[in-house]
């Protein structure tokens, strides 16, 4: 890439000032100030309804770390995130690879079908799945002749939410990997087949490394969105049975807008932010390590 020249015309300077000025002001109002407010709020006992805003130092954090539901929700969130991301990537990659195979026809049809759940609103889908999981008249138990109370059994409730999420979202990964595969240069494959590599070797040593940018994109965007998931919990289990399906973002919702403990909720949400940052860095490191 050749070195670009500095800004020359007046209109370029104007353009830059308008765009960047807008961006900086906007980000300050809607991001920097809110984060500052949250950080400050996490050191206060803060209830907007009766105008309480009292400095209590680290009490919210101390309470957070000794709050059993907090640790449970964090565990659930990490588990939820890791498993759903794994299946989304694995399923997406496998199906995209199969669809990309020269053997397949009707690619468009399959592609259309797999992406379908992704375009539907999550709240609506969650309601449908909630009824599907009903032990008396739900689709799943009736179809497979099971007798499982999915959403009320602590062994199954969280996995049930995961299955729903994977079903809804795997299509996104299929489409991304498929376009990633389509854009790969075909000469790599030719040289591989000349070298006598088998299908698995071709996939492992040629396709996979070339797909790295797509992979990183899918993994990072998925992690960010799953660490924030709460709609399935809100609609399907409201955290139950007991507290076994509390996800951390649902805990924030519960504490902030049901109990009006804004300060406590702020502390939890900051913890989620830190967790997101750690996970993002890890996924960059992991894909970066594959490079060599």
């Amino acid at each position, binding site marked *: 890439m050749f070195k670009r020249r500095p800004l020359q015309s007046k209109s370029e300077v104007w353009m830059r000032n308008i765009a960047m000025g807008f961006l900086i002001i906007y980000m300050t109002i809607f991001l920097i100030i809110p984060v500052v407010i949250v950080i400050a709020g996490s050191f206060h006992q803060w209830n907007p309804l009766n105008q309480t805003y009292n400095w209590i130092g680290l009490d919210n954090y101390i309470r957070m770390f000794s709050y059993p539901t907090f640790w449970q929700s964090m565990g659930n969130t990490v588990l939820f995130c890791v498993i759903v991301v794994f299946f989304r990537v694995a399923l997406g990659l496998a199906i995209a690879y199969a669809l990309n195979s020269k053997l397949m026809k009707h690619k468009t049809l399959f592609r259309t079908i797999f992406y379908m759940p992704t375009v539907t609103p999550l709240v609506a889908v969650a309601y449908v799945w909630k009824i599907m999981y009903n032990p*008396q008249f739900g689709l799943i138990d009736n179809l497979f002749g099971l007798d499982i*109370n999915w959403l*009320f059994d602590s062994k199954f409730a969280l996995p049930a939410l995961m299955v729903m999420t994977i079903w809804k979202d795997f299509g996104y990964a299929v489409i991304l990997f498929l376009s990633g595969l389509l854009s790969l240069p075909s000469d790599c494959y030719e040289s591989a087949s000349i070298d006598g590599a088998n299908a698995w070797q071709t996939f492992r040593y040629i396709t996979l490394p070339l797909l790295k940018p797509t992979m990183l994109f899918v993994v990072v965007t998925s992690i960010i969105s799953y660490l924030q998931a709460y709609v399935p919990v809100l609609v399907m289990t409201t955290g*139950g049975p*007991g*507290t076994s399906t509390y996800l951390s973002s649902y805990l924030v919702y519960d504490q902030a807008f049901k109990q009006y403990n804004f300060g406590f909720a702020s502390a939890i949400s900051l913890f989620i932010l830190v967790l997101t940052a750690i996970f993002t860095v890890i996924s960059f490191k992991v894909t970066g390590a594959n490079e060599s």
Partner: protein
Amino acid sequence: MKRFLSFCLALVLVFSLAGCSSGGSENGTSTGKQDTQADKGMEVMGDNVTYDPNHLVNDGEPITIDWWVWATEDMFRSIAEAYQEIHPNVTINVINNPWDGFFTKLPLALQRDEEGPTLFNVHNSYEHLLLNYMEPYDIDTDELIADYPSASTHLIDGNVYYMDYGLSTGMYYYNKDLWAEAGLTDDDIPKTWDEFIEVAQKLTKFDENGNMVQAGYNYNNYFNSTVIGLNYQFGDNLFSADGKESLADGEGMKEATTFLIDLYEKYHVGDKDFGTNYDQSFYQGQSAMVFAWGFFVGNLATNAPDINYGTFEIPTQDGETPYAYYRYNGESTPGINKNATDAQKEVAQDFIRFYLASDDVQIKLSQDGGLIPAKSSLMDAPELKDTPIVRTVGPHIDRYIWPGAMPSTVENNLKIAGEDILYNGKDVADALKTAADTIDIDLANADFTSSESLYAYYEE
């Protein structure tokens, strides 16, 4: 690309136009007409709290107020309509916001001054969240208490912000058809828990594989509302003697909980996985008996008008009069938003006076809502003599305890405890201990004191 953008722009235009035009019609339909006639030749209502309809509100100018409710909106709407008939310049929009999230949305809406609801239904478990936004009733408190004795328990610094219009409690509802099918008659109505178990077992059916197809008794999704109060029969109050601490981990609650769990796990008269909602299962005729509060009468009328049901009082250990059968609670009158405009508040105050003074209104509320009227003059009203709740618990209502305006944390945490025990296999004592600890923290924040000590037989 250009086409796409212009298409989007066109869409935006169309929708914003549609938005504007409909916004206009919204305002157009909701205003009442000018009222010029103050003297309507109507009778003055009420005994101590009186309402004279022969005056103008808001000088007869059209005015609109919103009234938030969370259920049975038709009932509240008919009351609003009765008021609008007297004052045609007033429009009361009854808005139904579901119970889930009602108290998330309400505090938000109350901060919107004149645009929020002027009237809103209150549940006393959320008193601590709402009090800050409420305007006291502009009615002499002595008159109020003369008509509604329980108003005295709602005096806050000499003012009443909301009070009870009816008393409700739990009782058993049974499906008469399933009852007859099992060969049971009215003589089999259980007085003791042993008899109850016997009846429930007769009403429980399994298929050839041993799967339940009909439950004798179902409390799924209602464990918490059932167990709170059952502790009185099993020997404990809900709160400590100073009224500050929860006894959710006390012996009474432990035994009551164990008893409910045993009904499923030992006597198999129901199942945690059969009919995940007690009410829906009853509507479908799949559960023969459920425990529910008075409001269930209204729910049955709307959701399952074909179910032929009867009610009986909660059984006791030995069939004798216990320390207390169960708890009761008040259904609360609407609150008035203190941030509303003066004109709106004037209308709201006038409406509340009408609401409390009119016997017709109070009878309708108790009849449709399954309540015992809080207005003492209506205790013997012929319309209310034969309602399920009056017939079932009326004779013993003095043996029911009002624990006070219990903050919602009590119900919420016992719900979690119940699910932890039933579905997560947690130990009864552990689960109740966790609940009690969390409740105590929240109670301290809410500055709550139980009213249990006011119970007439508290010393027994």
